[in-house]
């Protein structure tokens, strides 16, 4: 593993809720994660940025149990959850908005939300949360009984986020939530993320191509390159980093 450059000491957050230790994940022969170490503390927004194919999505997949790392460990809320399948993690308060939205196209908007609440048994809570989702994304209320598959790209993105919120997650993994959203709505999404974090204390791990905005709301950030952490530290510091600006923020 190449040395991790640290821009500034980590801000002392709360207790760690997520910890990755020396994680190696593979697609067949391809090593997508090459010994990843990473921590997300309670109440933080952590941004994960990097170019195409850097392994951001793979990292989230590995955390949420969609993939099992070949070696290394994932710790969630103090417990080793390496290789625990996702459906068990969801019950423990982790939510993941996957890349590409993955809503259920043959279910209505409402049904998509109800499925999101699969692990919730309290009928009243479910309805309340659907209501909250509609509040956040009024478009969804308008389209309550439209089939998910016929929603526009951006509408599907909203649905995917609302669906993940149905379990009132402790930890939320977001994979490029702003992809395909209008500029106005991108702002909206980021403010929603911030509010979730501030008002509900939801811990957030955010993967974004829109690095400048992600860094603007994040507490800390990791920069990933070809499966390895190249840089980590305070978000503002990273945003100011010369190489980062060049490579990911599009500055010439």
């Amino acid at each position, binding site marked *: 593993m190449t040395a991790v450059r640290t821009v500034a000491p980590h801000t002392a957050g709360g207790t760690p809720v997520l910890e990755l230790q020396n994680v190696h994940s593979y697609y067949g022969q391809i090593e997508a994660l090459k010994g990843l170490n990473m921590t997300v503390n309670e109440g933080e927004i952590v941004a994960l940025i990097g170019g195409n194919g850097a392994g951001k999505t793979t990292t989230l997949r590995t955390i949420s149990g969609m993939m099992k790392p070949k070696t290394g460990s994932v710790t969630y809320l103090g417990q080793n959850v390496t290789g625990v399948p996702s459906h068990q993690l969801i019950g423990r308060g982790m939510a993941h908005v996957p890349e590409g939205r993955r809503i259920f196209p043959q279910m209505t908007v409402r049904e998509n939300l109800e499925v999101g609440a699969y692990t919730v048994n309290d009928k009243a809570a479910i309805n309340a949360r659907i209501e909250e989702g509609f509040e956040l994304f009024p478009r969804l209320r308008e389209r309550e009984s439209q089939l998910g598959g016929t929603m526009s790209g951006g509408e599907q993105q909203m649905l995917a986020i609302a669906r993940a919120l149905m379990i009132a997650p402790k930890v939320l993994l977001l994979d490029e939530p702003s992809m395909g959203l*209008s500029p106005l709505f991108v*702002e909206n999404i980021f403010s929603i993320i911030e509010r979730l974090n501030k008002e509900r204390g939801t811990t957030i791990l955010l993967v974004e191509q829109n690095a400048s905005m992600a860094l603007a709301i994040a507490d800390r950030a990791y920069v990933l390159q070809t499966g390895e952490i190249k840089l980590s530290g305070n978000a503002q510091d990273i945003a100011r980093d010369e190489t980062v600006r060049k490579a990911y923020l*599009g500055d010439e």
Partner: protein
Amino acid sequence: MTQIRMTQVAPTAPSAPLLDVQHLTKSFGGLTAVNDVTFQVPERRIISVIGPNGAGKTTFFNLITGIYAPDRGTVNLAGRSLVGLRPDQVVEAGISRTFQNIRLFPSMTAEENIMLGRGVRLRGGFWDSVLHTARFQKDEEEARNTARLMLDFVGLSKWRGELSTNLPYGDQRKLEIARALATTPKLILLDEPAAGMNPRETEDLKALIRAIRDELGVTVVLIEHDMRLVMTLSENITVLNYGSKLAEGLPHEIRNNPEVMTAYLGSGAAAGNYGKEAR
């Protein structure tokens, strides 16, 4: 790269638009996704279509390319009506496209994907293939040549024999563009070509789109939410909102249009520094 200048566009009078869309309308159940949109694209332009999520942009493309049949309205390409044509006939007429969600043929190589695209311009038929006629040989050669040129053009030569599904995301987008170009379109429609790309890659894409217009002479219409790209690349912008045309104009006009700002752009933070306009 002049050897790939291959546009077949007949020199139309500069006044006549290449694409002429009049009063295009489409509803799904109670929802009018595209509402009475009139839209014209002069030849050799780069035009952007923007608008909030669900505004009807993709549907608009689908109507032009024959994937959906419009409820009302006309679509003309260089004076020829396209309404009622099947998608494959639309391609033949000269409009090609890419998809918001990449749709390559995964088990074909990059080269084959492009050769497939070229198919619409090949004249050989069933018996030519079976009997390996001269025409067949010529066709194959042409298809392969096109593939080579196009891969070169979009900078994917190294992936020629690779299955398309194995390409990195950004390269898949470019391959889709190459495939669309292989049909020798007069007009190419790009649906969110920069989605999922980081700013660096978006810059490359910008150059590619310019080259499509400048070097190949193909007119470009694109849908995009990345304002950096839109504002610096397009010569004209059309804004859709709730299916209807909200505004139309030069990038700086659109950027400063208050209606567009409330409906779509917001404070501008998300769009960042839009950069300088093209030209």
